[in-house]
């Protein structure tokens, strides 16, 4: 009888714990804004085709530009847009001596509609890309401009710290030696830091709440879906 009662109490505790965890998880997910509030221009312009310009690199890290550029297409394509291959775009710009997006940023965006058939053009600016601790500190600015009227459809400034340590979130049970091993592992990981992974994380994070495009099942049905602030400061693992 007593054992049965104890079991019931334990069961109730377990249920409450699970419900509390679910409630906590859901509350942590609750968005501050909706996509429609944050990006009304995207819903009005409904761009289908995007062309991505090579990033404007204001840092001394020459690799950052290509790293960011080779992983920018995936999150936008997965969000339902037709993205003109950045690889082919770059080949064409190189051939036309226009590889530096700085020159193109201020120009009338209509040129991108004429040459690429694009509805909008994606610009990105790298203001910081430096190793810091066991990761990379970045400061990035993304702008999507309409090629019809030069209006800004999407804009985000992001202070993003990419935590690339392999075990920064794991507990260290190995004493001093374990700590040393942890430190070495992290240092090695950062030394060979898969920079592509860092760039991928940046791009995935920045476009995670972009309104979905024509090829996505949620196209024009995601206005009430949650969105982040436009200017964010975050650590991404």
């Amino acid at each position, binding site marked *: 009888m007593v054992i049965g009662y104890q079991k019931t109490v334990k069961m109730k505790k377990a249920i409450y714990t699970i419900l509390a965890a679910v409630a906590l998880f859901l509350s942590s*997910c609750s968005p501050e804004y909706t996509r429609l509030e944050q990006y009304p221009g995207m819903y009005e312009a409904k761009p289908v085709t995007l062309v991505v310009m090579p990033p404007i690199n204001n840092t001394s890290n020459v690799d950052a530009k290509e790293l960011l550029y080779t992983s920018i297409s995936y999150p936008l394509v997965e969000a339902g847009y037709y993205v003109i291959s950045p690889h082919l775009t770059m080949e064409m710009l190189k051939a036309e001596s226009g590889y530096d997006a700085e020159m193109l940023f201020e120009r009338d965006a209509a040129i991108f509609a004429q040459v690429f058939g694009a509805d909008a053009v994606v610009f990105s600016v790298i203001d910081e890309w430096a190793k810091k601790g066991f990761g990379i500190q970045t400061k990035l600015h993304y702008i999507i401009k309409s090629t019809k009227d030069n209006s800004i459809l999407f804009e985000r400034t992001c202070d993003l710290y990419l935590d690339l340590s392999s075990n920064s979130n794991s507990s260290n049970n190995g004493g001093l030696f374990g700590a040393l091993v942890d430190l070495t592992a992290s240092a090695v990981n950062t030394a060979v830091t898969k920079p592509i992974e860092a760039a991928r994380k940046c791009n995935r994070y920045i476009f995670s709440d972009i309104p979905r495009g024509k090829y996505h099942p949620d196209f024009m049905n995601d206005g009430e879906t949650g969105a982040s602030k436009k200017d964010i400061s975050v650590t991404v693992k």
Partner: protein
Amino acid sequence: MKKLLFIMAAGCLLCSCGTTQLYNWGGTYNGTTSYEQRLYAFYDRQSPESVCALVCQYADMVAKPGGVRNVVPPGIYAEYGYLLIQPETAEAFEKHATDKQKRMFGYTNYSTSFYELGLAMLQKEIELYPESQKFIGPLVERLKR
């Protein structure tokens, strides 16, 4: 019972976090798609081996569309076609591809076969994504030998 509750709760959490891909990108490793890794290696190393690996990556992606849309992702036919048409690609593949990579194609004359396949791939991009016509159409004309 407890186990069942735990599984249900974990399932709920996973479902709410789950994402479904629209397309197949050749699998992922450590969260990065195989496509992105090979493309970056191609830019970074510019080696004949990285060219061969990228050619095979594209061949695999166009042969196995997947994801929710079950079609090849935008831009992939175009990138593949453009890469195949470059004379250096056939040269690198002929000399440096492994037997396994060569078996994916089984060509005897890579220069001609890659060129023809390349044009066909560019046309497929236009067929599947008509919005690419404005950019790819003139590109095809320029690349015709």
